[in-house]
């Protein structure tokens, strides 16, 4: 098999497998303890994300000098914040702080010479903060764990393809890994019929957001594609959660709920193919 393809599959497969095993244990052990389960799932997801980054880039950079090098550290901070957010303590304050922090990662170095950089910091902070509110306050309450995780998974997984087409195979691999990891949690959450906690939306907003923004600014991912992928899970605002005890009913409700997400993801991928046609010459 092509060596590079094998490496990519390994980069996606290994973290997903680890998350599958660890999450299954977590779901079983903490079945009756939603807060502990949420923390466990969040930490497992964070660990999987960090491992996916390690497999893609071969190591961590300290101090981080490029935007994507912040991903492992962002994931750690998000996990820590998410653990407290499970208690609904200071959610909006911590979300705002995280949003500002991420905006600074991208634009702080430009501030001295570029007055527009402050505008971009403000815009990005607001966009990220609104996303966290939307996903945590609005969508999380209207979705089952599986619905939320699957919506995020589709977007992140499709992001892998779009970012690859945008010129960065490595960032695309990490995004694909994130999608696979979220997909694993979605499947487990579906079969256990449980919630997934506050950390998932935060990982999506800040890690997937970092990947999309890096690909737009430093590779050639088109802003339209990135925006469509970013807002795809917002389609989960439509409809009501389904916690029906019968799996077949839950599955049907889940698929219907996903139509809006699928549509936006399909349009995003279509725009990616149109704007940057696939042609690997490496």
């Amino acid at each position, binding site marked *: 098999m092509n*060596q*590079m393809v094998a*490496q990519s599959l390994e980069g996606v497969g290994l973290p997903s497998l680890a998350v599958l095993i660890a999450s299954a244990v977590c779901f079983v052990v903490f079945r009756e303890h939603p807060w502990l389960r949420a923390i466990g799932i969040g930490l497992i997801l964070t660990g999987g994300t960090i491992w996916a980054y390690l497999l893609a*880039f*071969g*190591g961590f*950079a300290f101090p981080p*000098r*490029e*935007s*994507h090098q912040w991903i492992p550290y962002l994931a750690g901070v998000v996990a820590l914040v998410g653990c407290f957010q499970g208690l609904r303590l200071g959610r909006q304050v911590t979300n705002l702080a995280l949003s500002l922090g991420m905006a600074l990662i991208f634009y702080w170095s430009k501030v001295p010479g570029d007055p527009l950089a402050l505008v971009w910091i403000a815009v990005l902070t607001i966009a990220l903060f609104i996303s966290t509110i939307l996903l945590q306050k609005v969508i999380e309450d209207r979705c089952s764990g599986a619905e939320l995780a699957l919506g995020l998974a589709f977007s992140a997984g499709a992001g892998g393809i779009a970012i690859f087409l945008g*010129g*960065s*195979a*490595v*960032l695309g691999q990490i995004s694909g890994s994130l999608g696979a990891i979220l997909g694993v949690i979605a499947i487990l959450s579906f079969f256990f019929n449980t919630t997934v906690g506050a950390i998932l939306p935060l990982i999506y907003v800040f890690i997937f957001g970092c990947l999309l923004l*890096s*690909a737009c*600014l*430093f*590779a*050639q991912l088109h802003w339209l594609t990135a925006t469509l992928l970013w807002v795809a899970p917002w389609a989960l605002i439509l409809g009501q959660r389904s916690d029906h005890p019968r799996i077949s009913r839950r599955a049907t409700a889940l698929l219907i709920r996903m139509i809006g997400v699928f549509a936006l993801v399909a349009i995003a991928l279509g725009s990616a193919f149109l704007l940057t046609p696939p*042609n*690997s*010459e*490496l």
Partner: protein
Amino acid sequence: MKKHYLPLLFSILAVAGATVAQADSFKIDPVHSAILFKINHFGVGYVYGRFDAFSGTFTLDQNDPSKDALSVEIKTDSVDTNAPDRDKHIKSPDFFNAAQYSTATFKSTSVKKVDDKTYEVTGDFTLRGVTKPVTLDVKAVGTGPGPKGEIRSGWEATTTLKRSEFEVKTFLPAVSDDVALIIAAEGIKQ
């Protein structure tokens, strides 16, 4: 009679002075210079590339070669491997991250003369924000007047870098860690 020899003597000295004297500065002429690299692809072949935009200077001191100096700046987004999609990938965060690190530079720190035409030039090579010491094997090609009478000096430098040392680890080992760099420069005396 002696007076007739003086103008001749001064003429000879003037011509001699027009060639390379003690410590002369040269500016690299990009039209007559090239920066190339090659990298092993899947262990079956070499991919060659070049940088289309670069600049630099060097100083030659015939009396004390240890005082020679070299400085080169390469625009990373000028990479050209004759494949536009591959060039796009190389400029991305996977390799050069050219949008964030627009230049790669080499600044010499020491020069050692091996023989009349060969030198070892050690310096700091910076790529993607990472600086590592690198030694170039330099061969002098020649020095002399150019088409417009300007003094030109040409040489060729080679070295092999490990791209992983500069945090460019994508697709290792399918695309080799070792990258051969060739700098063929012709400078115009300033």
